[in-house]
């Protein structure tokens, strides 16, 4: 841990605010992520977690504030530019390319690092073929990592739910990101699937040398896997720290855990 802290941050958000009309979805959000960190973001529904994701990945341009990746500003860039800079994401409401095969879903993500030109594809240059082979091999590797090799030629829409979630992760990995943002990757899974998934996420982080930002609803799960937690409520960070610290934070208990406990 100590060695991690010394290095420069991968992602840094400074006073990021997002306003929709009169509604402040996120206000003065600050975040620093060090290399190889696995940070969990929690908060009740409508707390602004996904909005934070959308700002980091460029879907929304923050109303004010700055976001840096490796020290370079990325706020206001288009999503594809941010993706090229090294941030990849999954979506809360799975957004696979439904009518395409699992392999094609991943191959599309490999496009980010393709050097071929479109006219090469039309003229069938040898560079084009080499590139296509490389991309396919690459994509197959990622399918393999996520245990989806047997689904290579299946249409994404026909995969079971859990596998669709994993395919989204494979697709995000294929863009070769520095930072991976996972939006409720375990939603809709049963407990054993969830545990397996969290193991997988940790393994991916280590194997691919990644930094991961994770939104998760399941408290126990996110506490088990994250090194650091961030709690959002009504667009404001109400607590930040190790899972133990957050768990004990009275504000968190009041805003989020308290509610859940009370229901139980």
């Amino acid at each position: 841990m100590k060695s991690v802290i010394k290095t420069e941050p991968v992602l840094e958000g400074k006073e990021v605010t997002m306003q929709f009309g009169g509604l402040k979805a996120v206000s003065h959000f600050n975040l620093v992520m060090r290399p190889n960190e696995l940070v969990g973001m929690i908060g009740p529904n409508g707390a602004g977690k996904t909005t934070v994701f959308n700002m980091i990945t460029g879907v929304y341009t923050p109303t004010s504030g700055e976001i840096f990746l490796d020290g370079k500003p990325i706020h206001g860039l288009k999503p594809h530019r941010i993706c090229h800079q090294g941030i990849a994401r999954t979506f809360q409401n799975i957004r696979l390319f439904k009518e395409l095969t699992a392999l094609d879903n991943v191959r599309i993500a490999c496009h980010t690092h393709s050097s071929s030109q479109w006219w090469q594809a039309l003229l069938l240059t040898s560079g084009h073929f080499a590139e296509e082979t490389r991309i396919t091999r690459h994509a197959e590797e990622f399918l393999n990592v996520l245990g989806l090799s047997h689904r290579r030629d299946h249409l994404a829409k026909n995969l079971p739910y859990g596998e669709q979630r994993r395919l989204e992760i494979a697709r995000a990995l294929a863009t070769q990101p520095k930072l991976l943002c996972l939006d409720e990757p375990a939603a809709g899974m049963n407990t054993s699937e969830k545990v397996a998934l969290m193991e997988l996420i940790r393994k991916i982080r280590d194997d691919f040398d990644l930094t991961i930002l994770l939104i998760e609803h399941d408290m126990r799960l996110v506490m088990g896997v994250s090194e650091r937690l961030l709690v959002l409520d009504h667009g404001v960070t109400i607590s930040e720290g190790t899972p133990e610290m957050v768990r004990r934070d009275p504000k968190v208990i009041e805003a989020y855990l308290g509610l859940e406990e009370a229901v139980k």
Partner: protein
Amino acid sequence: MSEFLQHLVNGISLGTIYALIALGYTMVYGVLKLINFAHGDVYMVGAFGGFYLAHLLGVNDSPSLPKTLVVFVGSMLICGTLGFLIERLAYRPLRYRPRLTALITAIGISFLLEFGFQLPRWSFMPFDFPPGPTPRFFPELFPRTIWFNIGEVSISNYDALALGVAILFMVGLEFIIYRTKFGVAMRAVSFDPNIAGLMGIPVDRIISGTFILGSVLASVAALLVSISRPRIDPIMGLMPGLKAFVAAVFGGIGNVPGAMVGGLILGLSEEFVAGYMLSSFRDAIAFAILILVLLFRPEGLFGRITTEKV
């Protein structure tokens, strides 16, 4: 000055036509998200329905108010039925398919009506149907009179009536949509037909109702236009239909006052382009204005921005 005033009156009169057709267009679109390409042809059928009824009643020889009313009601009934049938047979089976699919059947229906009406007369028909391609004279249901003059510019009862009816329709539609049970159901179906169905709304009936309403509007528009511009033919709905669609998009498709305003703006801009600039570029410039508006306001004048939830 009087020329400008005359252009203004002409433009409003032309815009009223577009608005009348656009109202029906926008209604159907609002609920179904379907470009009902056949709307212009329903309009054409409305005109011919009125034409046949007027001849049947001998309006040409002795026009009277009751006869005029019968012509209007009859034509509305014909179009309402046609609208119902089109939706039932050609659109409903494709409701949950990609929208382009229904667009193609809409084009098919449009062709069917246009080319069907261009056929030579069937010998077994007691009256002159199909009418064939030759234009027909639409009988004068009531004479044109000048209501008042401003300098050299005169305003006729035809123009005033059309504008009055258009405004009445706009207000009426707004009332139906926001103040009646049917309107609430329509809005629910427009929002999401599946969920509306789950909430116990008879989706099929609401959509049928919307189609009938839209088609009835088309028939009234057709009659009002045909009275003042008494030439009707099987393809009379093609260009007005297209222009009305442009007007509806212009105002923000699905939005009733938007269709009205869009129609008027389109009519006025065409009028002033043709009157003061190059009349041969009339259509091009009308489209160019539309494109410019859409580039700066992609949702149309009164449309709502729909953002996709990520």
